[in-house]
């Protein structure tokens, strides 16, 4: 109430009774939780800045211009991050190029072309793509993508054979350190990391640009259509030109996601390296800022003051880059006043029964490789045909003749209705194709995780023993290794983080939705978005620094479960805040007005009308947040660290994602097998959380809103 009263300078008079006081107290309570978000960002920035001060003064500008990163900081050599900065830019740029095009196509298809009954299942697949944890992407990349990309018969070798004359695909690199470094063709390099990143940013860009496209008023589309435009013309001229800013914003957000992605890149980029333009090649190994942390997490130690500070400066650099990227993107997308995509009452989801809605995604998933292969062939064929037709036309005209009317329509791009119609069809095909491009990797991940992971899960003691071969809850060691300690560890970390993160997140969400139409609210919303955009590895680094400097939690044991809990809780807050806010905003204002008009104080209206109406939505949002952090690796890699057995939260704490990260990178069959098993369990947990609950609550949410 206090925040929204008319600007009139009127002081509430003495007649104010206690309801008004309660109103204010409630507003203040939620405002404080909202302020926590700002507090976190401030502390975050200060810790990174103070910690990296030593490095900033010691290394100076060399940090940005030198490519040498010494093994430790005990001698005089300065730390130079140019390699990592370059690696980050080139992988992200590559990802944006490939992933961006595919995402836009997918978004346009989803929101403009797809038949209604298909929209919900297809969107579901894109969400599924977002739900797969990055450690699973990384492991799948190493096991599968590297397999066909690398090796003597791999795609990379062929690329090199055909395009080897291009510096991008050269197999010999001259570097400053040692000239003529031969490319290994092992499928772990910048190209493969870039490809995986492309896939990983597809859901981000697709869903945001779909939201942007939804905000284009129907009157624009219809105005264009009513002029006789084809579907594609109306999209190009009305939709895309109207939503240009937002779509660019979506692309930039995707870029931000790619810049901060750690674990999958650490798996695939090959580690350490020497890529410097212009001699660099995509086929060489490399390193990004984020993957540097994950690949060298053992080196991040306070014993080496200079080295530690340099790592912090590296973190600061990444934070600043992602911050700038996010600010630009937020301004462009201006999420503040757009209706969320979930707000759209999609008739598709209503028409589909629950079983059907699972049936279609699975069918599409299974068929996607075949359909897209077919489409690729068709597109190539059409393209060839057109070229041929053009050439033929020229020849006919040279002889003074002319083409049959029907053929002219196809060949002549000007003023021909047939051509417009053809382009329309062609673009539609292209969009379907790009959607399939997004879906194929998903199919591959699922098939592999099930075929390779499921048998492992049924191996003796796999879910009972820990990784050192002892039963988790006591008993005779059998020697069969399992992942029980990791399941327990993940469960504990995630549930304790939820205890902190959920209430904070929901209250801050209430503040933003119910009181946040002011400068402070906008600031909090912005900060929540910034916090959400902070690369998770940097979050881990931040907590690690705090723990080291303050001996918080367990003195003398800098890697412990509590630090992991804190990192995850902080990651969770902005996710839950923003989803709760969006869900609460879906509750129609007329409900609030109806209750307020009965003379009920605002805080009671929120608790008795608004929250109950949004309850199932909030629950869904919360569970999504839980699912997100359950799949996180980077923030706990630097804090909880992982363990082969469970010794309580005061010690290094195991987690499923950490098991996958440590064992998934080893080449021996036993480790690989263990990782497939862990991947299966992890995927089942994350997907159950993400979608199982949503399917249960969906109908209730619809009914109550």
């Amino acid at each position, binding site marked *: 109430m206090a925040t929204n009263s008319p600007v*009139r300078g*009127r002081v*509430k008079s003495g007649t104010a009774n206690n309801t008004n006081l309660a109103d204010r107290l409630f507003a203040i309570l939620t405002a404080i939780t909202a302020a926590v978000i700002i507090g976190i960002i401030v502390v975050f920035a200060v810790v990174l800045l103070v910690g990296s001060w030593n490095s900033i003064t010691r290394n100076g500008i060399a940090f940005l211009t030198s490519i040498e990163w010494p093994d430790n900081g005990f001698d005089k050599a300065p730390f130079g991050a140019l390699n990592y900065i370059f690696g980050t830019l080139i992988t992200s740029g590559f990802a944006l190029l490939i992933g961006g095009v595919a995402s836009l196509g997918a978004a346009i298809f989803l929101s403009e072309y797809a038949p209604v009954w298909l929209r919900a299942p297809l969107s579901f697949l894109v969400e599924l793509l977002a739900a797969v944890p990055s450690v699973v992407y990384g492991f799948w990349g190493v096991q599968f993508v590297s397999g066909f990309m690398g090796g003597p018969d791999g795609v990379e070798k062929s690329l090199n054979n055909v395009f080897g004359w291009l510096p991008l695909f050269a197999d010999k690199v001259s570097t400053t350190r040692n000239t003529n470094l031969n490319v290994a063709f092992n499928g772990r390099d910048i190209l493969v990391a870039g490809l995986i990143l492309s896939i990983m940013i597809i859901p981000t860009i697709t869903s945001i640009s779909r939201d942007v496209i939804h905000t284009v008023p129907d009157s624009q589309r219809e105005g264009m259509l009513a002029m006789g435009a084809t579907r594609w013309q109306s999209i190009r001229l009305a939709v895309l030109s109207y939503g240009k800013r937002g779509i660019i914003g979506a692309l930039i957000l995707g870029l931000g996601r790619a810049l901060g992605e750690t674990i999958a890149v650490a798996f695939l980029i090959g580690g350490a390296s020497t890529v410097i333009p212009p001699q660099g090649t995509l086929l060489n190994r490399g390193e990004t800022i984020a993957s540097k942390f994950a690949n060298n997490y053992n080196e991040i130690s306070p014993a080496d003051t200079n080295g530690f500070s340099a790592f912090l400066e590296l973190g600061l650099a990444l934070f600043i880059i992602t911050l700038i990227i996010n600010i630009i993107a937020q301004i462009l997308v201006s999420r503040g006043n757009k209706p969320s995509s979930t707000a759209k009452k999609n008739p598709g989801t209503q028409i589909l029964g629950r079983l059907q809605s699972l049936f279609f995604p699975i069918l599409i998933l299974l068929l996607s490789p075949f359909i897209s292969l077919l489409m690729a062939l068709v597109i190539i064929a059409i393209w060839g045909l057109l070229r041929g037709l053009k050439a033929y036309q020229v020849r006919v005209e040279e002889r003074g003749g002319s083409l049959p009317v029907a053929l002219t329509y196809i060949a002549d791009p000007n003023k021909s209705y047939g051509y417009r119609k053809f382009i329309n069809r062609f673009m539609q095909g292209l969009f379907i194709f790009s959607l399939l491009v997004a879906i194929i990797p998903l199919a591959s991940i699922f098939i592999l995780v099930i075929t390779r992971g499921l048998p492992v899960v049924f191996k003796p003691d796999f879910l009972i023993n820990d990784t050192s071969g002892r039963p988790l809850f006591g008993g005779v060691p059998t020697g069969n290794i399992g992942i029980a300690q990791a399941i327990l560890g993940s469960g504990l970390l995630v549930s304790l983080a939820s205890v902190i993160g959920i209430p904070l997140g929901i209250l801050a969400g209430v503040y933003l939705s119910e009181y946040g139409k002011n400068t402070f609210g906008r600031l909090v919303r912005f900060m929540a978005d910034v916090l959400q955009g902070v690369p998770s590895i940097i979050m881990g680094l931040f907590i690690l620094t705090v723990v080291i400097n303050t001996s918080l939690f367990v003195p003398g044991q800098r890697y412990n479960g509590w630090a992991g809990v804190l990192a995850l809780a902080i990651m969770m807050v902005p996710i839950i805040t923003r989803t709760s806010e969006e869900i609460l905003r879906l509750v129609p204002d*007329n409900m609030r007005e109806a209750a307020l*008009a*009965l003379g009920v104080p605002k805080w009671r209206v929120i608790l008795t009308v608004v929250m109950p109406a949004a309850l199932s939505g909030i629950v869904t949002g919360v569970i999504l947040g839980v699912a997100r952090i359950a799949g996180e690796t980077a923030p706990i890699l630097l804090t909880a660290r992982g363990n082969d057995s469970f010794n309580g939260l005061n010690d290094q704490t195991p987690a499923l994602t950490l098991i996958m990260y440590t064992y998934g990178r080893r080449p021996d069959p036993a480790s690989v097998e263990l990782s497939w098993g862990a991947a299966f369990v992890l995927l089942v947990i994350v997907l159950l959380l993400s979608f199982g609950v949503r399917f249960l609550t969906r109908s209730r949410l619809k009914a109550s809103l």
Partner: protein
Amino acid sequence: MKELSESFSRVTPFQIRTAVSPAGAVKAFDAADAGVPKLEIQNLNFYYGKFQALRNITVKIPSRRITSIIGPSGTGKSTFLRLFNRMSDLVPDTRVEGQVRLDGQDIFDSIEVVRLRSRVGMVFQKPNPFPKSIYDNIAYGPRMHGIKSKKQLDEIVETSARCAYIWDEIKDKLHISAMALSGGQQQRLCIARAIAVQPEVILMDEPCSALDPISTIKIEELMLQLRNNYTIVIVTHNMQQAARASDYTSVFMMAPDRAGELVEFGPTKQIFTNPKDERTEQYVTGRFG
């Protein structure tokens, strides 16, 4: 007058005014104030940011009468109505100048906003029942105002529902969701919900625009009944409705800078048969709008 209304609203209003019935069992003290100004609006200006939505409005709205507000869309009719229970507070960056007095008390200064809203009820354009049961919808207001006794609540629900002519339709299904009712029933339920907190004034913002003809007629009849006990202010875009169902009519028009102005106020009959202002005449004869 002021003391009277204050004192009786401090006691739970139901203890005194429960006996309102459709037949119009009008209390002695009620009849006395019929026709005297209930709401006095003086030199009212209202701004959304820099945009002036209402300019210099002065009017007195009589007690226990139906006053309709008509005018083309965009002339600030709803904005004006929403000032009376300060729903306008909900829109950020707005500014009010001038005075609105309820029984002589300035609603911006002297009445706490939550109290004001329990004295000035509102019915909205689109029926907006809560996603709760029919019973809980009507009982929501009284519950929030501290009535806990089941018996008392049952009584209030029944009286209010009878008052809003909806009791017969809902008495057998009080515990199903209000969302299951038809649009017209939902709107009458909303009226019952508003009546349940025993307001003195009921504001109606185009209450029939989303309803079918039969529901419209029912609601108009209901309004004429409620007039005995409540001061009703209704915004409508349907001029015939204003002509049929109101005692007084005020006409809003848009100035060149898009600010809304009150061009004429008077007995409904006079506005429709013998308007003083030329714009009113043009409007009521349908030359535009």
